[in-house]
């Protein structure tokens, strides 16, 4: 069983007729995800690759959705998220990039109020290998195994998962937390899930410059995590004051540096790889 989602998880896609929604809902079905419905205002009653489309989330509730992927454009994310939260969908994942962080703060607050898990925005989603994929991670990189991965980036996660798979190991759960300054699930949330997950033996954290969530994760590991944890930190060569692609990836006033994160991890007994593929070596 996956740590958040599993083979029984029923998923809806909000914005299923958009560019992202259309392509990735198809890929999710190929992965084996139970995509039970999609929404697209005005297109209710039609279907896409056999997936029924509704105008509203409320109309999908008889199908019993457990999770939603929100793939609408940034100006519409707030409304889509509130619709999902109001409907009480237990897991809300936002794929969209460029969501104003004030909107995310508000969405996050409403999720907390109703006990809803928020993943993202601006991350590749969540995969329980062999069971369920919600999001945009490439299907071909996984192999079922006991390594869980939580990451602030997309492609770099694939690079590292691919290295784990090529080394002969495999993954249990892979979670993309998102590259924004404010996101729902954090490293500590992921660590709690992974530590409790019987299918996970080892944990990989993929961090980057900006904020202090890696430092907080390191503190948490010292006290609460018995499983082996290794890490990679991107951005050690990034010039200060420059935003490196992700809105959250910036060293400001000497805070959020790679050095500080690597030091915190080392002090918590977490080995930090110099290169992404070296994660596989540290796991052995």
């Amino acid at each position, binding site marked *: 069983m996956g740590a958040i989602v599993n083979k029984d998880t029923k998923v809806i896609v909000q914005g299923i007729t958009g560019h992202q929604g259309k392509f990735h809902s198809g890929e999710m079905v190929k992965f084996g995800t139970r995509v039970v419905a999609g929404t697209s205002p005005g297109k209710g009653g039609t279907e896409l690759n056999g997936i029924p489309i509704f105008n509203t989330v409320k109309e999908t509730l008889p199908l019993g959705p457990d999770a939603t992927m929100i793939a609408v454009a940034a100006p519409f994310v707030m409304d889509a998220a509130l619709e999902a939260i109001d409907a009480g969908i237990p897991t809300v994942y936002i794929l969209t990039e460029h969501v104003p962080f004030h909107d995310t703060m508000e969405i996050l607050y409403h999720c907390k109020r109703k006990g809803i898990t928020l993943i993202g925005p601006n991350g590749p989603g969540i995969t329980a290998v062999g069971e369920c994929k919600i999001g945009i991670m490439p299907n071909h990189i996984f192999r079922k195994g006991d390594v869980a991965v939580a990451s602030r980036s997309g*492609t770099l996660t694939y690079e590292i998962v691919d290295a784990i798979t090529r080394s002969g190991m495999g993954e249990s759960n892979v979670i993309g937390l998102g590259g924004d300054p404010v996101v729902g699930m954090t490293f500590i949330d992921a660590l709690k899930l992974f530590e409790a997950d019987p299918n996970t033996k080892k944990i990989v954290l993929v961090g*980057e410059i900006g904020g202090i969530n890696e430092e907080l994760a390191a503190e948490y590991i010292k006290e609460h995590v018995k499983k082996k944890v290794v890490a990679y930190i991107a951005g050690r060569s990034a010039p200060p004051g420059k935003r490196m692609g992700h809105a959250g990836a910036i060293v400001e006033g000497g805070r959020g540096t790679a050095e500080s994160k690597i030091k915190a991890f080392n002090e918590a007994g977490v080995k930090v790889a*110099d290169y992404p593929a070296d994660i596989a070596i540290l796991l052995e």
Partner: protein
Amino acid sequence: MPQSRAGGFLNLYEYMGKQIFSKFGIPVPEGYVIHGPEEVRSMDKDVVVKSQILIGGRGKAGGIKFASNIDEARAAASTLLGTKIRGYSVNTLLVEEKLSIAKEYYVSISLNRTERKPLVMASVAGGVEIESVDPKKIATRIIDPLTGYSDYVGRELTGQLGLVPEEASQFRNFLKRLYEVFEAEDCELVEINPLVVTSSGKMVAADAKVVIDTDSLFKHTEYNVTDPEKTTLELEAQGKGYSFVEMDGDIGVIANGAGLTMATLDALTLHRGKPRNFLDLGGTDSVDTVVNAFELVMKANPKVILVNIFGGVTKCDTVATGITTAKTRLSIGKPIVVRLSGVREVEGREILQKDGIQAFSQMMPAIEAVVKAAGVN
């Protein structure tokens, strides 16, 4: 204004911040904006002439001048306009009444990334950079988004600061309205430093720092400010929708995904290679996106170019076709080293090998090859 794919934050000029403050009922000094000395108006009190540039410590850098009559004010304007202060051109001035300062306080509201909530900071030690103030003299308060700002938060803070009643009520009014600005304008930071208490006991926002989340600009189309810290090439890239950062090395870099691009720069640096740039191709399946990326990188005039792709949505054969197209169209004679892994990687590498371009399936051999091609020993 073209929106950068990188997301980010937009610093507003002081005069723009003060216009917003005024709109929300925060007292600011009487003043007006000029672009030429002839626009200075007649005056019955002393004024301060302030360069509108986005740097801290403008006063010390010579960007602020005082005048007690119109001739002095015009002279100050003439001196300041057209000059460069720490590399930034002065094109706009704010002419304001000179305040009679009794005390200088500090107040700000910012995003606290750890709590993922707004953070209020207040201090009676204003007028200097807040980082240099003894933390014991700073009162801080995380705001719960459920309740938002309410007067009890202000009472807690003014109590901690030990303000006298007549100052405390004015300060709470500032806090309340500043929080309204923070929320309504999608700010990452609103800061008043100094918040002046005049000799007649009135509180006035003597400066205004307002930083807006660029991802919110679809709600705030009125802001049209070019980030002065971006280079010409960075601005061009932003207009074309690329996340692009110039660096001072000689290895041009194109990769996909912000994390992988950062990891590529890091790996080059650990191999004593010097990256010329950060360029995130993003998720694309378009040949033109690749060609346009090469055009940008070529303008940065690197010695060699490294392309590092982990294919998913981005197909390796599309990238390969983009690379060969760019090589021909832009007549690139410089060495290009490519790493293609993931969706359609074999097809991609074949396309490149036919064109004599070095293509690897893994990242580290590509890093080693490009560093060697750049002449690093």
